[in-house]
């Protein structure tokens, strides 16, 4: 029995890397036979340097091994379909199956992005319809669907602010970003060539207007504001904020990642924002895919509209022939962000979602998202410390105040133990302004029973921590793996498989 590697791992089967499979035979896919003469690459591509390794080092699996390999991998993941996935700021909601079906219609997937407009009227109409609906939802008169994710939407918006100011002959140096903002905000401002200045939050989590007024000067391009903010609070002083920024010639960027709280309730375009992005993979239900693809469309005021990326989808009324076309004629545009038309397939899904929800459904969505979050806040307030007294909307952030009283556990421990109770943990240690933050966003997709199960799990874990803190500190125990050594991974990076095993640390 030497070499017996059998371990009782239950429903999880150990799975090697594909590169560790034994050398293979036929490919896992059978190609149609070539019906033109086969030409040797060296002959067909004279003067081209050809690979010397014949791809020797790549794996070769049968079709079924591919299915099994990735099925086993999939089983090591959790999913929103199986349980609440209350990652704050991520809006993990149900991904309707209808959207997956329509996005896969061959007429859409086989449309090449460079086809003449006349051949892709359906795709163009989808983009146009979605733009119109999002204009109504955000309250802005113009927008672009090109950005591939929220961060690219931010970059787009910030570049537009920059372009606008340069068009006015200004070159401002700073961008203001609140300390509670998501990391993409300062990073986007930085790529747009700004230096970032942090704006402090008040103890209740909202922007400190006095500090803002002080910080906002003629060398400041504007303020990037998340509203509702990352604590789930609607900036009560949003009108004043806008006035302060505008008074100094600045522009207000709205990070719309938290739009799920306020669709049909309040529109950034109505209250002084100048430009914003939406995360369609949050508010509009396109699947997160383990980290994308997403879409981060950017919407703006008429003043900023000339700076939107190219091309833009235009509807031509009347006349025959093509009714929709891509318009490249925009001399003030910041240019292009993505190779073609953005993540078109994601945009199809978002349109499908909005059409399914309807105006009433979208409003209901935000209402129930806010109800669910506040229900959790209410039910957990006696055992966890709510980070703000202010009313919160679609998410609630707890701090770790008092948590250590339970056997010395930390936010991380609580989060990891939730895994054993069948939940993906909430977002932890963000926003940075809350100590040991545990940021919970249930979304409207969770039924009350699941919220109650979560509350029960928190209660049970705190009781466990009182009784047996090690149990919680060493959690998870029921996942495929126990806690992973992230420090080792960062200190001695092994970033690809090699036949010799791990390459030496550098």
């Amino acid at each position, binding site marked *: 029995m030497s070499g017996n590697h059998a371990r009782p791992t239950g429903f999880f089967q150990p799975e090697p890397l594909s590169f560790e499979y034994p050398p293979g035979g036929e490919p*896992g896919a059978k190609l149609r036979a070539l019906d033109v003469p086969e030409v040797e690459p060296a002959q067909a591509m004279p003067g081209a340097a050809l690979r010397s390794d014949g791809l020797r080092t790549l794996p070769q699996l049968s079709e079924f091994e591919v299915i099994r390999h990735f099925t086993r991998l999939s089983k090591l993941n959790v999913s929103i379909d199986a349980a609440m996935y209350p990652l704050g700021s991520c809006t993990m909601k149900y991904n309707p199956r209808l959207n997956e079906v329509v996005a896969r219609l061959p007429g859409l997937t086989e449309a090449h992005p460079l086809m003449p407009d006349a051949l892709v009227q359906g795709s163009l109409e*989808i983009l146009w319809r979605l733009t119109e609906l999002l204009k109504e939802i955000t309250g802005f008169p113009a927008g672009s669907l090109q950005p591939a994710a929220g961060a690219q939407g931010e970059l787009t918006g910030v570049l537009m602010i920059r372009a606008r100011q340069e068009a006015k002959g200004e070159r401002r140096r700073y961008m203001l970003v609140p300390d509670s903002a998501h990391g993409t905000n300062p990073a986007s401002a930085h790529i747009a060539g700004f230096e970032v200045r942090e704006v402090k939050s008040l103890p209740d989590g909202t922007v400190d207007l006095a500090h803002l007024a002080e910080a906002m000067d003629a060398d400041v391009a504007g303020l990037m504001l998340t509203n509702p903010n990352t604590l789930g609070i609607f900036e009560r002083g949003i009108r004043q904020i806008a006035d302060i920024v505008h008074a100094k010639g600045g522009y207000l960027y709205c990070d719309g990642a938290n739009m799920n709280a306020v669709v049909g309730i309040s529109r950034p375009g109505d209250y002084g924002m100048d430009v914003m992005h939406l995360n369609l993979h949050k508010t509009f239900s396109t699947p997160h895919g383990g980290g994308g693809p997403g879409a981060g469309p950017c919407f703006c005021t008429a003043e900023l509209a000339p700076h939107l990326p190219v091309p833009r989808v235009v509807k031509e009324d009347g006349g025959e022939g093509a009714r929709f076309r891509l318009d490249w004629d925009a001399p003030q545009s910041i240019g292009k962000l993505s190779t073609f038309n953005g993540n078109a397939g994601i945009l199809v899904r978002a349109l499908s979602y909005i059409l399914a929800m309807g105006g009433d459904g979208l409003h209901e969505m935000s209402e129930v998202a806010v109800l669910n979050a506040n229900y959790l806040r209410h039910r957990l307030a006696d055992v966890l410390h709510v980070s703000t007294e202010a009313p919160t909307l679609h998410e609630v952030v707890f701090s770790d105040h008092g948590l250590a009283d339970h056997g010395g556990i930390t936010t991380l421990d609580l989060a990891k133990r939730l895994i054993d109770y069948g939940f993906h943990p909430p977002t932890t240690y963000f926003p940075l302004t809350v100590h040991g933050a545990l940021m919970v966003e249930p979304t409207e997709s969770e039924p009350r029973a699941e919220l109650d199960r979560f509350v029960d799990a928190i209660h049970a874990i705190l009781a466990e921590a009182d009784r047996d803190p090690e149990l919680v500190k060493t959690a998870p125990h029921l996942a495929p793996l126990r806690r992973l050594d992230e420090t080792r991974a960062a200190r001695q990076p092994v970033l690809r498989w090699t036949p010799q095993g791990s390459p030496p640390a550098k």
Partner: protein
Amino acid sequence: MRFIPNNEPARKAMLAEMGLPDIEALFAGVPSEVRLQRPLQVPPGMAEEEQLQLFSQLAARNEAQQVVSFLGAGSYPHYAPLVIDSLIQRAEFFTAYTPYQPEISQGTLQAIFEFQTFMTHLTGLDIANASVYDGASATAEAVLMADRLARGRSRVLLTQALHPHYRRVVDTHTHYLDVQRDTVPADPATGRMDVAALERLLDEDVACVVVQQPNVYGVIEDLAAIAAPVKRAGALLIVTVSEALSLALLEAPGALGADIVCGEAQSFGVPVAYGGPYLGFMATRDEHKRQLPGRIAGETVDADGQRGYVLTLATREQHIRRERATSNICTNENLVMLSALIYLTTLGRAGLLQVARQNVSLLAYLRERIAALPGYAAAFSGPSFNELAVRCPRPAAEVVQGCLRRGVLPGLDLGRWDAGRADTLLLAVTETKTRAHLDALVNALREVAA
């Protein structure tokens, strides 16, 4: 609404438990002056059946499927084995978030690690990330990365034969940075980079040189010849690839001197889908790993010593480093990366070689036929993989229109990008084409010329 589980009675019970009269009470924090005072003007929710009908109609309004298309130019139709779509529809893959909790995300993490390994092998470099948005943004990120690595140098040389959309995206990203962008011309005969011109443009201030391989005209560059002067000048060589399948046959750019290899991996089984979602890739040398943007997974062990994977080198990322991050990217193209990985795994060594060789043979067949067509000629003498620029006897725009009437979309009228090339057609041939398709194209071209 059918997606929302908590119905009226449930909501009422929850509110009662919270001691609240209605949901409205929860919105007290939203000042009334910024409240929308009317219902959204979004049509009422549609039934699933109605939506299927609507989208089928919209899809049918695309005439994409009615023509035999030879469009490439950055987006290539390749046959995607069905296992891909079956697997990525597992909820555990498509509904999951970024794998921040490694204990319950090993599926995604191991996939990332495998993809990184594939890309290092294909590019001939040490490390790779697990996707940025697309080929153009990968190229822009590579330029920004080179800019960080070559502090103090402020010029960037870009090949003239770079996909103009890539160029435009690079321009957008570098517009407000202290960077001067210059263009290295292509040799008008071969279509390859004019290496003499490159040498003239190179100096101590050049941070990097961006070359596309095969270039936007489908011509395979002589990377070794380009790398030599770039190295001498102490600049970084960035090779961007829009037809990733070419990596199966062409020598790995890393082996020929590239410092960063980036581009578009859509060719690995991702549908053309009107331009996205696709996936950008980036690979580089080990010593640059802390400047590589995007998600990276690394191997480690768990508390029991079992092998596992985690997202690593997080100090590059915006959620830790904020404005000092290597990039602002957060959500990337993970599920598309997974598709590409399944494609690579399914085809494997033998399959990738076979597909790539089929592409080459098909283009060779077509190249010969076109060469024999009166009035048409390859625009450049350089070698090509599966894409060819063809000089036409009439404006390419007319050739396109004429062929379309014959059910063939013969490629891209390069005049759309460059008025100076209004007589040139750029066409791509992949294994989705049969001899009958190629013959139909040749016939259409012949008729249109007449």
